[in-house]
Protein backbone atom coordinates (compact mmCIF):
# COMPACT_ATOMS: atom_id res chain seq x y z
CA UNK A 1 0.00 0.00 0.00
CA UNK A 2 1.27 3.44 -0.87
CA UNK A 3 1.81 5.65 2.15
CA UNK A 4 0.74 9.25 2.17
CA UNK A 5 0.02 11.37 5.22
CA UNK A 6 -1.33 10.00 8.49
CA UNK A 7 -5.03 9.41 7.87
CA UNK A 8 -5.82 9.97 11.56
CA UNK A 9 -4.96 13.62 11.16
CA UNK A 10 -7.81 14.11 8.71
CA UNK A 11 -10.51 14.63 11.30
CA UNK A 12 -10.92 18.19 12.56
CA UNK A 13 -10.30 18.83 16.25
CA UNK A 14 -13.26 19.27 18.58
CA UNK A 15 -14.68 22.78 18.85
CA UNK A 16 -12.72 24.04 15.87
CA UNK A 17 -13.34 27.55 14.60
CA UNK A 18 -15.76 27.09 11.71
CA UNK A 19 -15.50 30.61 10.38
CA UNK A 20 -13.86 31.61 7.13
CA UNK A 21 -11.96 34.68 6.02
CA UNK A 22 -13.69 38.03 6.46
CA UNK A 23 -15.83 39.21 3.55
CA UNK A 24 -13.81 42.38 3.00
CA UNK A 25 -10.73 40.30 2.15
CA UNK A 26 -12.43 39.20 -1.08
CA UNK A 27 -12.92 42.77 -2.29
CA UNK A 28 -9.79 44.64 -1.24
CA UNK A 29 -7.30 45.97 -3.81
CA UNK A 30 -4.86 46.84 -1.00
CA UNK A 31 -4.93 43.30 0.36
CA UNK A 32 -4.50 41.91 -3.15
CA UNK A 33 -1.19 43.76 -3.44
CA UNK A 34 0.10 41.77 -0.48
CA UNK A 35 -1.47 38.54 -1.72
CA UNK A 36 0.39 38.91 -5.01
CA UNK A 37 3.63 38.62 -3.04
CA UNK A 38 2.40 35.22 -1.84
CA UNK A 39 2.03 34.10 -5.45
CA UNK A 40 5.48 35.34 -6.39
CA UNK A 41 7.19 33.72 -3.40
CA UNK A 42 5.56 30.30 -3.72
CA UNK A 43 6.07 27.50 -6.23
CA UNK A 44 3.91 27.68 -9.33
CA UNK A 45 3.38 25.02 -12.00
CA UNK A 46 4.48 26.46 -15.33
CA UNK A 47 4.14 23.40 -17.57
CA UNK A 48 5.18 19.77 -18.03
CA UNK A 49 8.53 18.77 -19.52
CA UNK A 50 6.66 17.24 -22.46
CA UNK A 51 5.42 20.72 -23.42
CA UNK A 52 9.01 21.51 -24.47
CA UNK A 53 10.37 18.22 -25.85
CA UNK A 54 12.90 19.48 -28.42
CA UNK A 55 15.82 21.92 -28.59
CA UNK A 56 14.53 25.50 -28.69
CA UNK A 57 10.97 24.61 -27.62
CA UNK A 58 9.55 27.09 -25.14
CA UNK A 59 6.45 27.64 -23.02
CA UNK A 60 5.70 30.94 -21.36
CA UNK A 61 4.16 31.50 -17.97
CA UNK A 62 2.82 34.88 -16.83
CA UNK A 63 1.88 35.55 -13.23
CA UNK A 64 0.88 38.82 -11.56
CA UNK A 65 3.16 41.03 -13.66
CA UNK A 66 6.03 38.52 -13.81
CA UNK A 67 6.73 36.43 -16.88
CA UNK A 68 8.88 33.36 -17.42
CA UNK A 69 10.08 31.31 -20.36
CA UNK A 70 10.58 27.58 -19.89
CA UNK A 71 13.00 26.52 -22.60
CA UNK A 72 14.80 23.40 -23.79
CA UNK A 73 18.40 24.43 -24.51
CA UNK A 74 20.90 23.01 -27.01
CA UNK A 75 21.89 20.19 -24.66
CA UNK A 76 18.20 19.34 -24.08
CA UNK A 77 18.30 20.70 -20.55
CA UNK A 78 15.33 22.61 -19.17
CA UNK A 79 16.05 26.29 -18.50
CA UNK A 80 13.81 28.94 -16.95
CA UNK A 81 14.38 32.62 -17.69
CA UNK A 82 12.52 35.83 -17.08
CA UNK A 83 10.83 36.67 -20.38
CA UNK A 84 12.47 40.09 -20.23
CA UNK A 85 15.10 41.54 -22.55
CA UNK A 86 18.05 43.00 -20.67
CA UNK A 87 17.95 46.08 -22.90
CA UNK A 88 14.52 47.67 -22.38
CA UNK A 89 12.59 44.86 -20.70
CA UNK A 90 10.44 43.81 -23.64
CA UNK A 91 9.06 40.31 -23.88
CA UNK A 92 11.50 38.14 -25.79
CA UNK A 93 8.90 35.64 -26.92
CA UNK A 94 5.38 36.84 -27.47
CA UNK A 95 3.64 33.53 -28.18
CA UNK A 96 2.46 31.20 -25.40
CA UNK A 97 4.37 28.32 -26.89
CA UNK A 98 6.69 27.69 -29.81
CA UNK A 99 10.21 26.98 -30.95
CA UNK A 100 13.24 29.27 -31.16
CA UNK A 101 15.29 27.43 -33.72
CA UNK A 102 18.52 29.37 -33.37
CA UNK A 103 18.26 31.95 -30.62
CA UNK A 104 15.90 34.21 -28.72
CA UNK A 105 15.46 37.55 -30.45
CA UNK A 106 13.86 40.53 -28.78
CA UNK A 107 11.04 41.81 -31.01
CA UNK A 108 11.60 45.41 -29.85
CA UNK A 109 15.16 46.26 -30.99
CA UNK A 110 16.62 42.89 -31.92
CA UNK A 111 18.97 41.85 -29.13
CA UNK A 112 19.91 38.21 -29.65
CA UNK A 113 20.31 35.62 -26.88
CA UNK A 114 21.69 32.09 -27.11
CA UNK A 115 19.44 29.25 -25.93
CA UNK A 116 21.52 29.03 -22.73
CA UNK A 117 20.48 32.61 -21.97
CA UNK A 118 23.83 34.27 -22.68
CA UNK A 119 23.83 37.35 -24.87
CA UNK A 120 24.83 36.61 -28.44
CA UNK A 121 24.78 40.26 -29.34
CA UNK A 122 23.02 43.61 -29.14
CA UNK A 123 21.35 45.08 -32.20
CA UNK A 124 23.62 47.71 -33.81
CA UNK A 125 26.50 46.61 -31.59
CA UNK A 126 28.60 49.64 -32.57
CA UNK A 127 26.24 51.83 -30.51
CA UNK A 128 27.24 50.10 -27.27
CA UNK A 129 30.47 49.50 -25.42
CA UNK A 130 31.56 45.84 -25.39
CA UNK A 131 28.85 43.81 -23.65
CA UNK A 132 29.79 40.77 -21.60
CA UNK A 133 27.65 37.81 -22.69
CA UNK A 134 27.21 36.62 -19.10
CA UNK A 135 26.71 40.00 -17.48
CA UNK A 136 23.94 40.74 -19.95
CA UNK A 137 22.54 37.19 -19.99
CA UNK A 138 18.85 36.60 -19.39
CA UNK A 139 17.98 36.51 -15.71
CA UNK A 140 17.21 32.99 -14.57
CA UNK A 141 14.05 31.99 -12.72
CA UNK A 142 14.30 29.39 -9.97
CA UNK A 143 12.74 26.16 -11.17
CA UNK A 144 12.39 22.52 -10.21
CA UNK A 145 11.00 19.51 -12.03
CA UNK A 146 8.83 17.17 -9.97
CA UNK A 147 7.44 14.06 -11.67
CA UNK A 148 7.59 15.88 -14.98
CA UNK A 149 5.88 19.07 -13.83
CA UNK A 150 8.01 22.22 -14.09
CA UNK A 151 7.60 24.45 -11.07
CA UNK A 152 8.94 28.02 -11.00
CA UNK A 153 9.30 30.54 -8.19
CA UNK A 154 9.79 34.22 -9.01
CA UNK A 155 11.12 35.18 -5.57
CA UNK A 156 12.63 33.31 -2.68
CA UNK A 157 9.97 32.26 -0.19
CA UNK A 158 9.17 30.14 2.85
CA UNK A 159 8.49 26.86 1.04
CA UNK A 160 11.18 24.17 0.88
CA UNK A 161 12.11 22.54 -2.43
CA UNK A 162 9.21 21.05 -4.36
CA UNK A 163 10.67 17.60 -3.76
CA UNK A 164 10.55 18.17 0.00
CA UNK A 165 7.18 19.91 -0.11
CA UNK A 166 5.57 16.98 -1.93
CA UNK A 167 7.70 14.23 -0.38
CA UNK A 168 4.69 12.60 1.29
CA UNK A 169 3.19 11.99 -2.17
CA UNK A 170 6.40 11.08 -3.98
CA UNK A 171 5.93 7.31 -3.95
CA UNK A 172 2.31 7.50 -5.03
CA UNK A 173 2.91 10.04 -7.79
CA UNK A 174 5.90 8.13 -9.13
CA UNK A 175 3.77 5.00 -9.51
CA UNK A 176 1.68 6.90 -12.07
CA UNK A 177 4.79 7.44 -14.21
CA UNK A 178 3.48 10.88 -15.11
CA UNK A 179 6.91 12.24 -15.98
CA UNK A 180 6.69 10.20 -19.19
CA UNK A 181 3.28 11.53 -20.16
CA UNK A 182 2.66 13.81 -23.13
CA UNK A 183 0.28 16.73 -23.76
CA UNK A 184 -3.29 16.09 -24.84
CA UNK A 185 -4.99 19.24 -26.08
CA UNK A 186 -2.75 22.07 -24.90
CA UNK A 187 -3.40 24.69 -22.27
CA UNK A 188 -6.83 25.89 -21.28
CA UNK A 189 -7.26 29.33 -19.74
CA UNK A 190 -10.38 31.22 -18.80
CA UNK A 191 -11.17 34.48 -17.06
CA UNK A 192 -13.46 34.23 -14.05
CA UNK A 193 -15.24 37.29 -12.56
CA UNK A 194 -14.38 36.43 -8.96
CA UNK A 195 -11.68 36.93 -6.36
CA UNK A 196 -9.10 34.15 -6.60
CA UNK A 197 -9.86 32.93 -3.08
CA UNK A 198 -13.46 32.14 -4.02
CA UNK A 199 -12.14 29.65 -6.58
CA UNK A 200 -9.87 28.03 -4.01
CA UNK A 201 -12.63 27.97 -1.35
CA UNK A 202 -14.83 25.89 -3.64
CA UNK A 203 -12.01 23.60 -4.69
CA UNK A 204 -10.83 22.94 -1.16
CA UNK A 205 -13.87 20.94 -0.07
CA UNK A 206 -15.93 18.03 -1.33
CA UNK A 207 -19.00 18.80 0.81
CA UNK A 208 -20.69 20.31 -2.25
CA UNK A 209 -20.11 17.31 -4.56
CA UNK A 210 -23.41 15.54 -3.86
CA UNK A 211 -25.36 18.75 -4.46
CA UNK A 212 -23.45 20.38 -7.29
CA UNK A 213 -21.64 17.67 -9.26
CA UNK A 214 -24.02 14.88 -10.33
CA UNK A 215 -21.32 13.40 -12.55
CA UNK A 216 -18.65 13.20 -9.85
CA UNK A 217 -21.23 11.95 -7.36
CA UNK A 218 -22.09 9.18 -9.80
CA UNK A 219 -18.39 8.41 -10.24
CA UNK A 220 -17.13 8.35 -6.66
CA UNK A 221 -19.86 9.91 -4.50
CA UNK A 222 -19.58 8.98 -0.85
CA UNK A 223 -16.12 7.48 -1.37
CA UNK A 224 -14.64 10.96 -1.75
CA UNK A 225 -12.19 12.00 1.00
CA UNK A 226 -10.39 15.29 1.66
CA UNK A 227 -7.31 15.66 3.80
CA UNK A 228 -6.75 19.06 5.42
CA UNK A 229 -3.97 21.36 4.30
CA UNK A 230 -0.82 20.62 6.25
CA UNK A 231 2.60 22.15 5.60
CA UNK A 232 1.36 23.62 2.34
CA UNK A 233 -0.14 20.50 0.78
CA UNK A 234 -3.34 18.51 0.90
CA UNK A 235 -4.61 15.35 -0.73
CA UNK A 236 -8.08 14.29 -1.82
CA UNK A 237 -9.22 11.11 -3.46
CA UNK A 238 -12.36 9.64 -4.92
CA UNK A 239 -12.57 5.89 -5.28
CA UNK A 240 -15.12 4.80 -7.86
CA UNK A 241 -18.37 3.58 -6.36
CA UNK A 242 -19.42 0.04 -7.21
CA UNK A 243 -22.56 1.12 -9.04
CA UNK A 244 -22.47 0.99 -12.83
CA UNK A 245 -23.20 4.68 -13.09
CA UNK A 246 -26.45 6.38 -14.08
CA UNK A 247 -24.91 9.10 -16.29
CA UNK A 248 -23.87 8.11 -19.80
CA UNK A 249 -20.30 9.41 -19.49
CA UNK A 250 -19.77 7.94 -16.00
CA UNK A 251 -21.31 4.59 -16.90
CA UNK A 252 -19.06 4.21 -19.92
CA UNK A 253 -16.03 5.65 -18.15
CA UNK A 254 -16.35 3.05 -15.40
CA UNK A 255 -16.69 0.43 -18.08
CA UNK A 256 -13.64 1.47 -20.11
CA UNK A 257 -11.26 2.92 -17.50
CA UNK A 258 -8.07 0.90 -17.57
CA UNK A 259 -4.95 1.47 -15.55
CA UNK A 260 -1.36 1.57 -16.74
CA UNK A 261 0.68 -1.47 -15.77
CA UNK A 262 2.86 0.59 -13.42
CA UNK A 263 -0.11 1.64 -11.29
CA UNK A 264 -0.90 -0.44 -8.20
CA UNK A 265 -4.26 -2.20 -8.22
CA UNK A 266 -5.36 -0.12 -5.20
CA UNK A 267 -5.22 3.04 -7.35
CA UNK A 268 -6.77 1.56 -10.47
CA UNK A 269 -10.22 3.00 -9.79
CA UNK A 270 -9.40 6.25 -8.06
CA UNK A 271 -8.99 9.92 -8.92
CA UNK A 272 -6.37 11.64 -6.75
CA UNK A 273 -5.82 15.36 -6.19
CA UNK A 274 -2.82 17.10 -4.59
CA UNK A 275 -3.47 20.64 -3.41
CA UNK A 276 -0.35 22.79 -3.36
CA UNK A 277 -0.52 26.08 -1.47
CA UNK A 278 -1.43 28.71 -2.53
CA UNK A 279 -3.19 28.01 -5.82
CA UNK A 280 -2.31 24.78 -7.61
CA UNK A 281 -3.72 21.28 -7.90
CA UNK A 282 -2.25 18.22 -9.58
CA UNK A 283 -4.84 15.55 -10.33
CA UNK A 284 -4.25 11.99 -11.50
CA UNK A 285 -6.63 9.44 -12.94
CA UNK A 286 -5.79 5.97 -14.26
CA UNK A 287 -5.52 7.54 -17.74
CA UNK A 288 -4.23 11.09 -17.24
CA UNK A 289 -2.58 13.66 -15.09
CA UNK A 290 -3.52 17.31 -15.11
CA UNK A 291 -2.87 20.49 -13.23
CA UNK A 292 -5.00 23.54 -12.66
CA UNK A 293 -4.35 26.81 -10.91
CA UNK A 294 -5.83 30.29 -10.55
CA UNK A 295 -4.18 33.71 -10.45
CA UNK A 296 -5.57 37.10 -9.56
CA UNK A 297 -5.88 39.71 -12.30
CA UNK A 298 -7.60 42.14 -9.97
CA UNK A 299 -9.45 41.77 -6.68
CA UNK A 300 -12.57 40.65 -8.58
CA UNK A 301 -11.14 38.88 -11.60
CA UNK A 302 -9.00 35.77 -11.92
CA UNK A 303 -7.46 33.55 -14.56
CA UNK A 304 -7.92 29.79 -14.39
CA UNK A 305 -5.22 27.81 -16.22
CA UNK A 306 -5.03 24.07 -16.82
CA UNK A 307 -3.40 21.37 -18.94
CA UNK A 308 -3.89 17.61 -19.22
CA UNK A 309 -1.35 14.88 -20.07
CA UNK A 310 -1.74 11.27 -21.19
CA UNK A 311 0.37 8.16 -21.55
CA UNK A 312 2.20 8.07 -24.89
CA UNK A 313 1.39 4.41 -25.39
CA UNK A 314 -2.31 4.56 -24.57
CA UNK A 315 -4.46 2.05 -26.40
CA UNK A 316 -7.88 2.63 -27.95
CA UNK A 317 -9.71 1.73 -24.75
CA UNK A 318 -7.65 4.14 -22.67
CA UNK A 319 -8.20 6.85 -25.23
CA UNK A 320 -11.97 6.38 -24.97
CA UNK A 321 -11.74 6.41 -21.17
CA UNK A 322 -9.67 9.60 -21.28
CA UNK A 323 -12.31 11.27 -23.47
CA UNK A 324 -15.05 10.24 -21.07
CA UNK A 325 -13.05 11.45 -18.05
CA UNK A 326 -12.58 14.82 -19.74
CA UNK A 327 -16.36 15.06 -20.31
CA UNK A 328 -17.02 14.44 -16.62
CA UNK A 329 -14.34 16.93 -15.68
CA UNK A 330 -15.58 19.58 -18.12
CA UNK A 331 -19.06 19.47 -16.59
CA UNK A 332 -17.54 19.74 -13.12
CA UNK A 333 -15.56 22.84 -14.07
CA UNK A 334 -18.68 24.62 -15.37
CA UNK A 335 -20.59 23.69 -12.21
CA UNK A 336 -17.74 24.89 -9.99
CA UNK A 337 -17.50 28.21 -11.83
CA UNK A 338 -21.10 28.98 -10.89
CA UNK A 339 -20.43 28.07 -7.27
CA UNK A 340 -17.45 30.43 -7.14
CA UNK A 341 -19.64 33.28 -8.40
CA UNK A 342 -22.27 32.64 -5.73
CA UNK A 343 -19.64 32.32 -3.02
CA UNK A 344 -17.81 35.44 -4.14
CA UNK A 345 -20.89 37.68 -4.36
CA UNK A 346 -21.89 36.70 -0.83
CA UNK A 347 -18.73 38.34 0.43
CA UNK A 348 -19.97 41.74 -0.73
CA UNK A 349 -23.21 41.51 1.22
CA UNK A 350 -23.53 43.27 4.57
CA UNK A 351 -26.12 40.67 5.49
CA UNK A 352 -23.81 37.66 5.28
CA UNK A 353 -22.05 36.79 8.52
CA UNK A 354 -19.37 34.69 6.87
CA UNK A 355 -18.77 30.96 6.49
CA UNK A 356 -19.94 28.43 9.06
CA UNK A 357 -18.04 25.37 7.90
CA UNK A 358 -18.94 21.67 8.06
CA UNK A 359 -16.48 19.06 9.33
CA UNK A 360 -16.37 18.06 5.66
CA UNK A 361 -15.00 21.54 4.88
CA UNK A 362 -12.10 21.44 7.31
CA UNK A 363 -9.76 21.74 4.34
CA UNK A 364 -11.09 25.26 3.73
CA UNK A 365 -10.24 26.23 7.31
CA UNK A 366 -6.74 24.74 7.20
CA UNK A 367 -6.09 26.45 3.88
CA UNK A 368 -7.23 29.78 5.35
CA UNK A 369 -4.95 29.16 8.32
CA UNK A 370 -2.02 29.02 5.90
CA UNK A 371 -3.05 32.44 4.57
CA UNK A 372 -3.53 33.82 8.08
CA UNK A 373 -0.05 32.69 9.06
CA UNK A 374 1.39 34.78 6.24
CA UNK A 375 -0.92 37.80 6.47
CA UNK A 376 -2.43 38.20 9.94
CA UNK A 377 -4.64 41.01 8.69
CA UNK A 378 -7.03 38.25 7.55
CA UNK A 379 -7.93 37.93 11.23
CA UNK A 380 -9.43 41.45 11.26
CA UNK A 381 -13.17 40.94 11.02
CA UNK A 382 -14.34 44.44 10.10
CA UNK A 383 -13.08 45.99 6.87
CA UNK A 384 -10.11 48.27 7.60
CA UNK A 385 -9.58 51.41 5.54
CA UNK A 386 -7.85 50.47 2.31
CA UNK A 387 -4.91 52.77 2.91
CA UNK A 388 -4.36 51.29 6.37
CA UNK A 389 -4.35 47.58 5.51
CA UNK A 390 -0.65 47.26 4.84
CA UNK A 391 0.31 49.12 8.01
CA UNK A 392 -2.26 47.21 10.05
CA UNK A 393 -0.91 43.91 8.77
CA UNK A 394 2.63 44.94 9.67
CA UNK A 395 1.52 45.92 13.16
CA UNK A 396 -0.01 42.45 13.58
CA UNK A 397 3.34 40.86 12.86
CA UNK A 398 3.51 40.01 9.18
CA UNK A 399 5.91 37.20 8.42
CA UNK A 400 8.41 37.40 5.64
CA UNK A 401 6.75 35.98 2.58
Amino acid at each position, binding site marked *: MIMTKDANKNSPPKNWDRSGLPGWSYHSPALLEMEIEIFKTHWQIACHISDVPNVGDFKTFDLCGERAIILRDSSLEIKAFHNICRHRGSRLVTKDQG*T*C*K*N*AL*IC*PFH*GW*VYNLDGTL*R*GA*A*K*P*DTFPALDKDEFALRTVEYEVWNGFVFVRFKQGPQPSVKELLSCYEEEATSYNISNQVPTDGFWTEMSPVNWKSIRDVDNEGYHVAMAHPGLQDLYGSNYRDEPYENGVSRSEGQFTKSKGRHWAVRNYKKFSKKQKSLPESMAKTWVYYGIFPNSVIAMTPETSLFYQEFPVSFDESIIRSATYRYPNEDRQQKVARYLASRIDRETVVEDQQLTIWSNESMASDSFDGFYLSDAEYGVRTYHDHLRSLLPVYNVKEAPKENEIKHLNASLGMKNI
Partner: protein
Amino acid sequence: MMSVKTSISLEFKKQKILLASKVGIPGSGAIRYAAAMYFYNHGNVSLEMLEIYRRCCKLDKEDPIDLAQFEGVEIIPNLILEL
Protein backbone atom coordinates in the same frame (compact mmCIF):
# COMPACT_ATOMS: atom_id res chain seq x y z
CA MET B 1 34.92 14.54 -25.06
CA MET B 2 34.67 16.99 -27.93
CA SER B 3 37.49 19.55 -28.14
CA VAL B 4 36.67 23.25 -28.02
CA LYS B 5 38.02 23.65 -31.56
CA THR B 6 35.80 20.87 -32.90
CA SER B 7 32.82 22.27 -31.06
CA ILE B 8 33.33 25.73 -32.55
CA SER B 9 33.78 24.22 -35.99
CA LEU B 10 30.51 22.28 -35.66
CA GLU B 11 28.73 25.40 -34.47
CA PHE B 12 30.20 27.35 -37.39
CA LYS B 13 28.80 24.79 -39.84
CA LYS B 14 25.43 24.77 -38.09
CA GLN B 15 25.16 28.55 -38.15
CA LYS B 16 26.17 28.64 -41.79
CA ILE B 17 23.26 26.34 -42.63
CA LEU B 18 20.93 28.50 -40.55
CA LEU B 19 22.18 31.67 -42.29
CA ALA B 20 21.19 30.02 -45.54
CA SER B 21 17.64 29.23 -44.34
CA LYS B 22 15.30 29.36 -47.29
CA VAL B 23 13.62 32.73 -47.76
CA GLY B 24 9.87 32.55 -47.22
CA ILE B 25 9.78 29.89 -44.54
CA PRO B 26 7.96 31.17 -41.42
CA GLY B 27 10.50 32.25 -38.81
CA SER B 28 13.39 32.15 -41.26
CA GLY B 29 14.11 35.89 -40.98
CA ALA B 30 14.82 35.53 -37.27
CA ILE B 31 16.91 32.41 -37.83
CA ARG B 32 19.06 34.23 -40.41
CA TYR B 33 19.47 37.30 -38.20
CA ALA B 34 20.54 35.18 -35.20
CA ALA B 35 23.07 33.38 -37.40
CA ALA B 36 24.31 36.70 -38.80
CA MET B 37 24.92 37.87 -35.23
CA TYR B 38 27.01 34.74 -34.64
CA PHE B 39 29.13 35.48 -37.73
CA TYR B 40 29.39 39.18 -36.84
CA ASN B 41 30.92 38.09 -33.52
CA HIS B 42 33.44 36.01 -35.45
CA GLY B 43 34.28 38.80 -37.89
CA ASN B 44 32.58 37.18 -40.88
CA VAL B 45 29.70 39.63 -41.27
CA SER B 46 30.00 43.40 -41.43
CA LEU B 47 28.01 45.82 -39.31
CA GLU B 48 26.13 47.01 -42.39
CA MET B 49 25.20 43.48 -43.39
CA LEU B 50 24.17 42.62 -39.82
CA GLU B 51 21.82 45.59 -39.95
CA ILE B 52 20.35 44.30 -43.22
CA TYR B 53 19.67 40.98 -41.50
CA ARG B 54 18.09 42.82 -38.55
CA ARG B 55 15.74 44.68 -40.90
CA CYS B 56 14.75 41.35 -42.45
CA CYS B 57 14.33 39.63 -39.09
CA LYS B 58 10.52 39.82 -39.11
CA LEU B 59 10.25 39.74 -42.91
CA ASP B 60 10.55 36.06 -43.72
CA LYS B 61 9.92 36.67 -47.42
CA GLU B 62 12.59 39.36 -47.79
CA ASP B 63 15.94 38.08 -49.06
CA PRO B 64 18.67 39.95 -47.13
CA ILE B 65 21.20 39.54 -49.95
CA ASP B 66 18.76 41.02 -52.48
CA LEU B 67 18.08 43.88 -50.10
CA ALA B 68 21.78 44.48 -49.53
CA GLN B 69 22.45 44.60 -53.26
CA PHE B 70 19.41 46.83 -53.82
CA GLU B 71 20.61 49.26 -51.18
CA GLY B 72 24.17 49.16 -52.37
CA VAL B 73 25.64 47.69 -49.24
CA GLU B 74 29.14 47.13 -50.44
CA ILE B 75 30.65 44.76 -47.94
CA ILE B 76 29.19 41.34 -48.60
CA PRO B 77 31.74 38.85 -47.33
CA ASN B 78 32.54 35.64 -49.14
CA LEU B 79 30.69 33.70 -46.49
CA ILE B 80 27.39 35.18 -47.62
CA LEU B 81 28.13 35.11 -51.34
CA GLU B 82 28.79 31.38 -51.03
CA LEU B 83 25.20 30.76 -49.89
